[in-house]
């Protein structure tokens, strides 16, 4: 009998019954009902499933649940605090940086990860860090603007 896995997601602990090699994405969506992380390709090629594991953006469709147990996980559902949106969420909202919005969770999580590592990224650094995220609706310019705006908001807030 395999050792039961426990995940720490958005500050809460969740016991997991799915097999250890199940990709984290399926556990989040199907077992825990955290459906904000999306299935787009199952191959780590589109970024729609991006979550933060230990603060780093990761493709949850490529991470076996057993490998995700050690570190705290943040999903799109965990960004809002006490009714206040994360600055990246707010910036996406302000910029209207979505159309069908199916990629939005992944875009936001990748951007939150970027800004944690690099609070003042250049345009090129934003483009580089979102290169693995697909937006098929073609909302890229507004997404880049939103990330720049979020960086500005976070710096003003930190001051």
């Amino acid at each position, binding site marked *: 009998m395999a050792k039961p896995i426990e995940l720490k997601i958005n500050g809460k602990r969740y016991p997991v019954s799915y097999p250890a090699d199940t990709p984290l994405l399926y556990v989040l969506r199907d077992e825990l009902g955290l459906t904000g992380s999306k299935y787009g390709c199952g191959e780590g090629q589109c970024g729609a499933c991006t979550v933060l594991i230990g603060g780093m953006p990761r493709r949850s469709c490529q991470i076996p649940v057993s490998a995700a147990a050690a570190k705290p996980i943040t999903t799109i559902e965990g960004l809002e605090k006490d009714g206040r949106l994360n600055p990246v969420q707010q910036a996406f909202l302000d910029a209207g940086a979505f159309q069908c919005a199916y990629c939005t969770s992944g875009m936001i999580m990748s951007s939150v990860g970027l800004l944690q590592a690099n609070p003042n990224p250049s345009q090129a650094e934003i483009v580089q860090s979102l290169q693995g995220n697909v937006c098929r609706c073609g909302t*890229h310019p507004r997404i880049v603007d939103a990330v720049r705006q979020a960086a500005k908001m976070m710096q003003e807030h930190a001051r």
Partner: protein
Amino acid sequence: MSNIQQKFFPEPERYEFSAVPVHQFELARRDFFKILGAGIAVFAIAKDALAAQETAPGHRSFHNEELPKDINAWLHVGEDGSITGFTGKAEIGQNIRTALAQTIADELRVPFESVRMVTADTALTPFDAGTFGSRTTPTITPQLRRVAAAARDLLIEAAAKEWNVAPAGLVAADAKVTEPASGRSLKYAELARGKTLAQNLSAEDPITPATQWTIAGKAIPKVDARAFVTGKHQYTTDLRPAGMLYGRVLRPPSFGATLTSCDDSAAKAMTGVVVVRDGDFVGVAAPSAHEAQRALDAIHTQWKEVPQLSSKEIFTYLKQNAAAKSEDRFRKQKGSVEEGLANAAHRLGATYTVAYIAHAPLEPRAAVAQWADGKLTVWTGTQRPFANRDELADVFHLPESSVRVIVPDTGSAYGGKHTSDAAIEAARLARAAGRPVKVVWTRDEEFTWAYFRPAGVIEVKSGIASDGALTAWEFHNYHSGMSGIETPYDVANQRTEYHQVPLILRSGSYRGLAATANHFARETHMDALANAVKMDPLEFRMKNLSNARMRAVLEAAGKSFGWPRKKTQEEQGFGIACGDEKGSYVATCAEIAVDKTSRAVRVVRLVEAFECGAIVNPDGLRNQVVGAMIQGLGGALFEAIEFENGRIKNPHFASYRLPRFRDVPEIEAVLLDRKDIPSAGAGETPIMALAPAIGNAIFDATGVRLNNLPMVPNGLRSA
């Protein structure tokens, strides 16, 4: 290729796979009020000039399209003052939920926040043929305006009755009816209280002209935007009704393959697994996705495969297998092309090709099906909920009234979600399992078993006088379709023809349909003609163009781009192209640069002018226009479906290259707001002029003329 596939000819404009019957709305009025509570309701049965105009062929298409003749719309004013608008259209990212609510708020004179839209639910909304062809704005917007205007009149009449005065002196504004003389007023909520008043729209109420819009025409943010940035919005793929199983379908190894043997005993023995076999259909349902996958892997099958064409031979095949003589409705001629060519100073003939491409919506095809008491409910991301309902009713031998299709706001479609494949699969599995089943296609399935924008070959022959005036234009499209096939330029002698070829890969609608292919061929050819007489490409177009709206977008794009531009470096180029479809006009300017060592083409800057009449929401419109330009980069530069032996060779995002952040140039969208012209749709036309503008810029930079889409899948080395 299989015999089954051989029977199917594509429709020249692929809005649908087959004609749709016209249905009457069956929800009784008492049911309507039961669902929504008391209040005032207005129904529009639009057998009027507006609808007739919309179903008539556009000036650029000359075959008969079948669309429903009685487009309905309705609206409800609740006892709490909440307004609900109903439409069979689906929200697929094009932002109609916001734009239509704006329209109602504007006409009914209520705050935007008090309006909600019920969309694409076959039990609640009026029949609708589907969300395609850029039709929501031109058809539904005026319908909802007329319904809202009628509701406003009803509310005024109710107030007049209450006060025992003539309705003529009363004013409706700010969600209340006011009598200016006395200053007294009644809120809509108060007027609707305790009433179950329903009215069919009879008279043609005048609707508010765009010059007097107060809420429409404004950049109102997307409705429910917060639900999208917090991950709370539930797409079809996110639904999990109690007891739901996860379904998977076993796919054949290649197109046209038939099942010869199937051993599903191991799968059937698995706990909680349901296996369904019905002819060549083999599917499973299991308590989790990984158990469904395991069950699928445990089924052993053998298939009989049949020879299939490959992408390498496709263009030769299309030319050789075209119908010997095309039908009259696919041909148009005026003057004499032969004479026009004989009198020309320059003649040019060229062949253009376009590859199959995939829609690749980020939310794959998906459906959740639930049976209860012999009735079927399906949630699915489709552009055609009513057609899905009819197909489900047909497949399961049910009356239409026993099937309900609901479309949650969907993770995009681009013309790719017309069919009911996932809905039927989920319903089949759910019926056998006796529990709700969700089917979500994998990315591989999405790339292989959906359908494609068809490939095509286009041949153009033309002649011009020495001053650059067109004298002859002959245009033949093989297979890809008729949208945008007619030239907007002034040419006395012309022949245009669409040649049907039996389907090779499953093909269907796509943003802009064949207009992208036809515009690529025409606008590339026009550029080559300008070059032949050493004229500036913009000047050459203007010389042959009298259409004022087309001239206006060309001027606007040229002005913002700075046309004509002087080159400041080697292998830098500028290109321009234009077009019109579905009542809207586009002109695109492109700047490109070629990398010296890698020979990669980099699109540096794009400027596009777009005009679709009166703008309903400039913010949503800008998203659609810029989005179409970026999506168009893929088909222009590198997107192509490769296939061989009935298999798709690149069914993954790693091998099918989509536009990504690094591919996106500096982009400017110039939106022309024509308040004097009825609003047209904007989902498609902005994609059409992009590829030729880029191709023409590549020619300007390098002297290399690229006539095949995609133009540079491997940079200019392979060109």
